């Protein structure tokens, strides 16, 4: 029997993927990458920020995921992430600018809210840059 995985990626702001059929998912788990194939044992893992990629037949895609959780239960993969975006949609130049801007904001003393949001922006930008780099290395073209 050729079973498939169904992948859902949900963030607080929107459901990125709902029950998409895929054949393989690789999650950025807390203690290293975790590949999931159909028939995987039921698991709950904590994710860290990083790259999530999936394959579905000949089609494949990458997502950047900012820390969250994943639940694997009977061929259902549920990813609850604080933010997720398609790697294709990441603009490297913009990410680099955001990175620099966040760094600058951290250097200037502001109030607590500004500092906190700058810090999270910095983290996001760093992950985006990492993913853009990964894509370049693999020579993936959108």
């Amino acid at each position: 029997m050729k079973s498939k995985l169904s992948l859902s990626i949900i963030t607080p702001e929107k459901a990125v993927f709902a029950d998409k059929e895929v054949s393989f998912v690789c999650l950025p788990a807390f203690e290293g990458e975790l590949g999931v194939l159909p028939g995987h044992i039921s698991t709950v893992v904590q994710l860290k920020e990083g790259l999530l990629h999936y394959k579905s037949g000949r089609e494949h895609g990458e997502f950047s995921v900012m820390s969250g959780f994943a639940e694997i239960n009977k061929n259902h993969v549920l990813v609850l992430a604080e933010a997720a975006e398609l790697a294709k949609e990441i603009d490297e130049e913009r990410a680099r600018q955001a990175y620099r801007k966040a760094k600058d904001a951290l250097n200037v003393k502001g109030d607590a809210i500004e500092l906190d949001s700058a810090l999270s922006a910095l983290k996001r930008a760093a992950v985006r840059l990492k993913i853009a780099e990964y894509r370049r290395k693999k020579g993936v073209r959108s």
Partner: protein
Amino acid sequence: MASIRDIRKHIGSVKSIKQITYAMKMVAAARIKRAQFGILSARPFSDKMDALVGDLYSEMGEEDFKASPAYKLFEEKTMAGAVCLVLVTADKGLCGSFNTNLLKAALAWLKEYRGKKIYVIAVGRKGRDFLKRLKGLDLELHFEMVNIFPRADYAKAEILGGKVIELFLGGNIERVTLIYNEFKSMLTQRIVTGDLLPLQKRVLSSGIEVKRGDFNFEPSKAGLLEALLPRQLKAQLYRVLLESQAAELAARMNAMESASKNAAELIEGLTLKMNKTRQAMITTELNEIVGGAEALGG
């Protein structure tokens, strides 16, 4: 009696007020669509989060659970000396009774805990200003977050949640209560006063169906729960921010709609009055002319 000039001036000013209120209504109406959409898209996340916490809880034995660091968020400290209030209001006025009702509810709550030390976390300018004006209470403004509406996003909720947890774990705090406006429909908002922490009752009562799935956990269950609970709290706060935001827009839309209507009525009344005055003036003038001609002609 007012002269025609005065009445014209009055009509002019009412007209420009009407224009402003009408524009504000349109802006609120345009934004509310997005706000509602935001609530809808935040729902699956918080639902799944609750389900995940429920699963995890049912997988963990009571003993394990008590030993985990996450237990601190559940523990009821009845003898503690302080309480905390999270008050979510709007940043701006002109939205009917939205803020007034909230502040009334907050005042009632504060009266109840008069004797204790109260920490307050204020979201929204109106609530912060109100709390700053209060006197005669053992009140400390722990954290404030203003100017976030109408662009509340998850990052804000995250910061807020972090502060709440930090306060709860750091201080000797019995409970954290949340007061906000819930978006019920376009016409009604409901004020909700609910306990945010400790978690005990809510998580347990959320109806856990025991799924004997024999889950694998990475890292350990306790570690997962510890990481998961703050996130669940933040997801909940995010929902609250969105609800309050939508409720504010709905309240403003209604308030501005009735203001525009009132202005239209006022203009109608004033125009009538102006016409009558003008008519009276013309009649008097005619009378004078006729009287004068008669006096001359004999």
